[in-house]
């Protein structure tokens, strides 16, 4: 009896060892495939500079009057319902208590937390640095919303049915509405940039190829362009500006949206609100 048991446990052991080797082999094989698969995957974060354009935005807080035109134009052009905002304008204060308006699009971070956490690669960084969404891939887990330090992402809680009341005063819808259940975000109006480049227009210079918020701004507080091109409007403005800041720089996300901080001597736009 005990011999029989011994034999049995022996065969059990043999079996398990062989199966273990088989299994390890399979897992190794799978591990070897990973680089192949991820080679096909899209780039998640830039970090290194590329030769092509890197789109960026500069917002001069001193010129912002808090009129919200950027928000409205964004809603109209990007086909957003009224409670969904890609761009938000808030009233903030400096350390000395001076009030100013802070308008916040997506920061299009060079090292974007949202692209790292997305489980399906639905949000990714394009070659030109724009953080884009693939609405057909998104499963609506909202991890990117939790990860974004700028609160820049919005979820489609409802089914989009009505056109925004900002249409047609502030623009007409240029992109199709997104499905209920996916997360969406500011795209730097990448549809305008892509279409504009095909027609040899320069984003940041030609309005048709420039984000709607930049075009709509009545005071020219927003400047857009290629950060890699020294002749672009944004590079020129940046080189003329002594002090710029980016939001929550301590997180090392390296946003591509720069701000000119409020100057103590200049009047802020708060009185015009």
């Amino acid at each position, binding site marked *: 009896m005990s011999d029989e048991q011994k034999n049995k446990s022996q065969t059990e052991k043999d079996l398990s060892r062989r199966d273990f080797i088989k299994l390890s082999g399979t897992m190794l094989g799978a591990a070897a495939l990973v680089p192949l698969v991820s080679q096909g995957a899209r780039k998640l974060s830039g970090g290194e500079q590329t030769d092509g354009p890197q789109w960026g935005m500069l917002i001069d807080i001193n010129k912002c009057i808090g009129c919200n035109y950027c928000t409205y134009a964004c809603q109209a052009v990007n086909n957003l319902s009224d409670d969904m905002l890609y761009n938000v304008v808030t009233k903030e204060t400096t350390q000395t208590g001076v009030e100013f308006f802070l308008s916040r699009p997506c920061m299009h971070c060079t090292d974007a937390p949202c692209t*790292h956490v997305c489980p399906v690669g639905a949000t990714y960084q394009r070659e030109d640095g724009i953080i884009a969404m693939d609405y057909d891939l*998104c499963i609506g887990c909202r991890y990117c919303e939790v990860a974004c330090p700028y609160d820049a992402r919005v979820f489609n*809680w409802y089914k989009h049915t009505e056109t925004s009341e900002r249409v047609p005063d502030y623009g007409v819808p240029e992109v199709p509405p997104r499905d209920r259940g996916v997360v969406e975000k500011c795209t730097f109006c990448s549809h305008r940039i892509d279409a504009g480049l095909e027609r040899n227009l320069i984003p940041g210079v030609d309005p048709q190829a420039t984000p709607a918020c930049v075009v709509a701004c009545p005071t020219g507080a927003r400047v857009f362009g290629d950060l890699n091109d020294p002749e672009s409007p944004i590079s020129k403005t940046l080189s003329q500006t002594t002090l710029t800041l980016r939001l929550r720089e301590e997180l090392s996300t390296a946003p591509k949206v720069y701000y000119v901080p409020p100057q103590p001597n200049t009047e802020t736009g708060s009185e015009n609100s």
Partner: protein
Amino acid sequence: MITPEVKSFKIHFGKKEVYIFPYWIGLLICGIAFGLVGAHQVFTRGLQVTGLSNQVPWGLWITIDLSAIALGGSTFVFGVVVYLLRIKRFEIVGKLAILLGFLGYSTAGMVLLFDLGKPLRFWHPIIFWQPHSLLWEITMCVVLYLTVLAAELLPVVLEHPVFSTHPFLDKFQILRKAINLLHRLADWLHSIAPVLAVLGLTLSLLHQASLGATYSVLSGRGMWFNQSAPVQFVLSAMGGGTSLLFFLSVVVFRIMRPGLVKDDILYDVARIAGAIVLLCIYIRVWDWAVTNYYSFDTEVSLQTSVLNSIAPYSATFWIGQVIFALIPGTILLLSRRVNNFRILMAAAVLPVICTVLVRWNYNFSGLIASISYSPFNPAVILNSYVPTWQEWSVASLVISYWLLLFSLAAHYLPFTSQASRH
């Protein structure tokens, strides 16, 4: 047959003796029925029926999801004890652990399905890989681990006599053939049990840790989302899971089905649970000291004071997580001396509550009180979240499912294997 051995709970009303098992099952079916109403609303109208918002995108369901996975943490502990260390006296308790694991993970999978904005795309992570994402890794681990658990559970379920002696099997030959095939599969699965145990251990450690890391990487959120979260999640899952296993082992093997497991073994399970719970709280208190005493973080102290102003936040830490772990941990560790199953069972409930509370606090602390992006005066913004009845309804659905399957399994599952009976 197994069933006559079952001594289920009975309540005495005067001279009348009432067998409460059917009423309990009825209650759970009501819970599922109520849950289906909410589930229908969620699937037809979408997540607008929840109390979630863009600022608090994760709520009650995520907490249930994390807790269900954590409370299945005993499975890999006992997988190692029984199949790798080959301590055979824990085999029957180990089978109960596998059941708890399977229930925990299937519950988690179910509640996640509701939590997705696009439930029909639940399979996307399996096809569209994004290996940088913790959530991707967790999804893959949970899917694979659920498969492993199903493979481990199948031989246990197939040992029920109904699968070899039911008259239908002789009537319909095809059924007999299918069952024989399943039996052969089960035998093979049983023979590779150690492989499954190693695989289960690897997958468990990977994703239990990653669930903590899910919050660790949220650098923009501050509070509690620290680097020790992965270790704490693993240890608290092991502690809470084993405490739950002890509690339910007493229910099943002392109250419902006495005679299957000796009291000595149950004491040992309690001691294992106690040891892990104490180890976990040791690390947890060090972690508290590191974040609150040895270093000063303005954001963390701001968040703590804001959270304390709206909820007994610090109290949930000191009472719910430190005391609820220290006292029961000690009692469970001294189980042989305590020698009283009522006290031990009461003690085992607290680490389970503690495990759930850790997840609750982890999830909400950074979402309810988040830091603004204001460049000069970063402030703590207080968000609010109140679960709607639809969310409670879905919670009732998945918890009732867990309890129903557990009750039926505890009642009918043969925990002794035929091989050992021979």
